[in-house]
């Protein structure tokens, strides 16, 4: 799916609380990588994974919940690290708790789930990594030779 830079910039500027469904506590899994990065860049990460939920377990210092519906405060974006075929019910829950954006990670592409959000005028991104897109727009990704598509005469932000 081709997403415009302006759309990505708007989402990542406005949505500061991210529930990460399928977040692993294992440090070398991509979900942990991406969440740790986003946390370091000022986003609040809310782990959602039934495997670690209950008994007050935390990942990245944040309480882990078993389901989106269990989160006792509003989240703005739901970032999904689950298989494509498992996304639709997650998207329905995400809508129910008032999320403004459904983000499906690299390799996750549930078109029905995206359509559910887009049909309500909300944002849906698929097959993208939230960390990579953040680094692409706000700096960092250019340091590893990735073609960011960013052409600008404005000073780069400090990292």
């Amino acid at each position, binding site marked *: 799916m081709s997403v*415009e*830079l*302006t759309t990505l910039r708007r989402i990542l500027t406005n949505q500061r609380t991210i529930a990460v469904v399928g977040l692993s506590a294992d*440090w*070398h899994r*991509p979900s*942990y*990588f991406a969440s*740790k*990065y986003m946390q*370091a860049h000022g986003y609040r990460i809310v782990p959602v994974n039934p495997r670690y939920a209950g008994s007050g377990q935390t990942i990245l210092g944040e309480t882990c919940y078993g389901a989106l519906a269990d989160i006792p405060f509003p989240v703005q974006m739901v970032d999904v690290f689950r298989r494509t075929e498992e996304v639709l019910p997650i998207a329905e829950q995400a809508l129910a708790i008032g999320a403004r954006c459904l983000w499906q990670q*690299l*390799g996750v592409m549930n078109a029905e789930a995206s359509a559910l959000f887009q049909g309500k005028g909300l944002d849906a991104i698929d097959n993208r*990594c939230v960390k*990579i897109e953040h*680094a692409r727009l706000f*700096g*960092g*990704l*250019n*340091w*590893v*030779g*990735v*073609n*960011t*598509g*960013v*052409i*600008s*005469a*404005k*000073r*780069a*932000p*400090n*990292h």
Partner: protein
Amino acid sequence: MSDHQFQPATLSIHAGQIPDSATGARALPIYQTTSFVFDSAEHAAALFNLQTFGNVYSRLSNPTVAVLEERVAALEGGRAGVASASGMAAEAMALMTIAQAGDHIVAAGSLYGGSVTMLAVSLKKFGIETTFVDATDPSAFAAAMRPNTRAIFAESLGNPSLVVLDIAAVADVAHAHGVPLVIDNTVPSPMLCNPIKFGADIVVHSATKYLGGHGTTLGGVVVESGQFPWDNGKFPGMTEPSPGYHGVRFYETFGDFGFTMRCRMESLRVFGASLSPTSAWQILQGVETLPLRMVQHCANALAVANYLQLDPRVAWVNYPGLPDHPQHDLLQRQMSGASGLLSFGVVGGLSAGIRFIEGAQMMSHLVNIGDTRTLISHPASTTHRQLDAAQQLSAGVLPDMVRISVGLEHIDDILWDVDQALNAATDRS
């Protein structure tokens, strides 16, 4: 608002470089430093774990070098790039990231002599075997494929054979076997040809040539398309935990630039053929004018080819920009110009060719290409000397071949020197 699509002439100046965050410097600063401080032990750990992007040590990445990487990736229409100390290093890095002992490569027989040696001698020592085939015949690539073949490697425009590869047809062969097509796009440069558009998966450059363009600086770049399915079962190094980088699965973690990250972390970081920041800066000075220079290289080369073709002192001319060249139509489909290289034979054979080279006044006798200066050489006795006679013929090197890399001097002066050197060669003055 949809994203504006910038043209190559703009990308060649801007891609990869926005004004420096620390100083606001508009032109690219040269970050001539080996290493970068960490904010904290936590930050250091996150960098080493690849959990955050940043610079650690200039053997792995450097902000000045990164601009060259992104700029060439942008000009090629690729997803990401990684630079190296030379074009040979880029080629070695790309192939060593794809293949390992027990694997097989199918390559164009008409490759640059150094590339032939790398495949036939050096990579063979590490257990990677290569079959060389006729690059003008896509079915020859198909016939040479084996179950353990892991890549096809060829030049978009051969140096010095000037063989034009049917990139789309050979990409189909590679993809039917689930392997990537690796293209050396040095001779056309990204201004004249973008192999990724025709199905190539990896593009390598000697940036020493047209990209740098001024004959001052060595460098290389590997670009990946971001479109190859590395999880097709043939590339466990892309999908399994990396023993060379604490268990990272490169394709899963970095997706469509996973190959470039693996190239950087498993090949560049370990074998160490990194590009110096100063060299990257010098090459980038050249890249800014690449679009203008390539137009003039093509125009001057065509004028020289036309001149030679009509001259009775010349036995034969090979320039795919000539309409009667057998691959001219294919070239027209894939490239917006035939670049600045051509070859020819002087009447009188090998000894007359050597007299031509020695008789030149302004044209330089040396073994580079893609300089502002016009360069002449005799491949059989120089760049392709390591090859035996059969290998030379397969590489398109005839004993009497003179190669010209036509420069940017005034065309009247180039033709004047060609004329007087031909007189010296044929003793008709």
